[in-house]
């Protein structure tokens, strides 16, 4: 599932800023995967992360999408 996990976040916000698709947001000072369905698996978040906190997966799955979503 796209960006998979964030472990050991130091709250620097680099991943939030570098994600082109606004997938990651901040919550209580830590980065949180918020909109995984919009992840393009480009790894820019992982590459900008200074502490290698982000794990990626090449698998893309998106939730069921309904017209009123």
């Amino acid at each position, binding site marked *: 599932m796209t960006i998979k996990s964030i472990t050991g976040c130091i709250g620097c916000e680099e991943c939030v800023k570098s994600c082109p698709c606004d997938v990651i947001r901040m*919550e209580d000072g830590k980065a949180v995967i918020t909109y995984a369905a919009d992840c393009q698996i480009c*790894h820019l978040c992982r590459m900008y992360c200074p502490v290698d906190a982000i794990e990626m997966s090449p698998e893309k799955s998106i939730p069921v999408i309904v017209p*009123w979503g």
Partner: protein
Amino acid sequence: MTTTSETSGPTRRAFMAFSGASAGLAAIGMEAWAQNAVEIDPDAITNTDHVTDVLVIGGGMAGLFAAVKAHDAGAATMIVSKGRLGSSGLTPFGKGFFVFDPATEPGSIDDFVDTVSRSALGTNNPVYTRQLAEHSMDRAVELRDWGYFNQTLANRPFMRPIDDRDIPLLERVTITHLIKEDGRIAGAAGFRLDAEETVTIRAKSVILCTGAGGFKPNGFPLGDLTHDGTVMAYRIGAKVTGKEWNDGHMTRADHPAATFDTWGDMFERVPSTNGVEVHHDLGVDLNYRAYVLGNPVAGGPGAPQETAEVAGGPYVPQEFQRTSDAPADGDGPPPGAGEGGAPGGPPPGFAPSANVGGASAGMAIHKSEGLVPYDDRCASNIPGLYAAGDALGSHMAGGIYTQVGSSLAGSAVQGAIAGEAAAEYASGVEAPMIPDTRLAEITDEILAPLRRDAGYGPAWVTQTLQGIMIPNFVLYIKKAAMMNAALAYIEELRDHHAPMLRAANMHELRLAWETRNMILSAEMKLRASLFRTESRCSHYRLDYPEVDDVNWRAWINIHRADDGTMELTKQPFGTWPDQG
């Protein structure tokens, strides 16, 4: 001159204080920055108003140079990006930077321009092709000074000249509207992702460095490129060109949606320069093969080729045909190396083994799909509105991928030229007057999807758009019947679904506006493709498979007619548009 900013209260109930006093750049809600609000109250949204001479929209290679050169020419300059400088759009995808070095190139610039024109079958604008060669080295020298060629991630070297000059930079701000007053550009408006806030910017001149786009298929890495600039400009009367061309990148059979699996070599590479290397690539020939034989297509440029002969398909000039998996001279990157693939391997975007076609559609050919240039300085038909890079339909490289590394270099070159031109224009005009009522109207329109209780989610509308435009090769192997069928669906999305898009928060609001832009872009692409009754470069019609030099040595321009419909006109190759 300085750039000024001011925040005002909730937009709907108290839209005021748009004029007058200046303040520093607003630092709003920093402790809650980028928090996610699942549901927000649109009536509590505030507005920040900015004033500048030159507004640059877009934070890629073109936007960087546009801002630096506009500032250095004396204009108060501001950049706004919906992502982060150097990290969004296509800039991270390219690491090869074309430089024409007269000391080492065996041929002249004239030779280079002629070669591009032969590959592009006349579709290139030779003035912009020449400009690329003439200015590329100067831009590479500047990038080298900023440290661009020493690292893999562009943000830090891009920030150096911006920080040195104190150029105001608004990141994670989605611009949805260009504003025109009294027949000239007057500014832009949009909203922040990280705060419940709309943004209005009054500017004497605006430079679109917004890139181009595709249709955001799950399988292709163009998640944030949705033709925003082109569509915003079209809505205020700008002419648009090049919508019939298509980049024909395939994707990998394994993990087709994983951008990094396909492009990671580029992302992790340190940028480098390359010299003249002209191809006729990334058109639709491999998609034609996939259409005829089925997927996957083994090989791709630079990989072992299939042996099965396929009759017909797009015309490739003899001089530029691929004959083997290695270039004829045995060195250098393989044919079609795009932004500079690793020597000996497939170019970025192509797996060494199985590729699949029909996995994306509607992706622009670099520099050939965007605003119609009215001169050699990136001006549009709207006074004060400029475009550079992939947002300008300069046809610098033509309707197919020709010079390796020209997309990054072309964005740098055109950004710099547009920046200087915009600063010069801004120095000769008064600040535009935008009535507060007009700004209130625009911010209301921006926020409308947040106020809808019923309607359609942008993700669903986008999925529907993908279903119409992508799997059936509609824009690769073009046929009138299929395109007319697709157009009927697109018109339905445009008329019925787009006006009912709804959003619960700022993330979804961005998706809603991107979806609207993609729908209009899809309509343009279908209409231009139907209009061009021939095949040439990356435009391939199964029902008109031949190049038609009698009728079609012309670009296609699109503008909004008085009755709101799209009007298409021809502009002969090698000419500028009528100034009227």
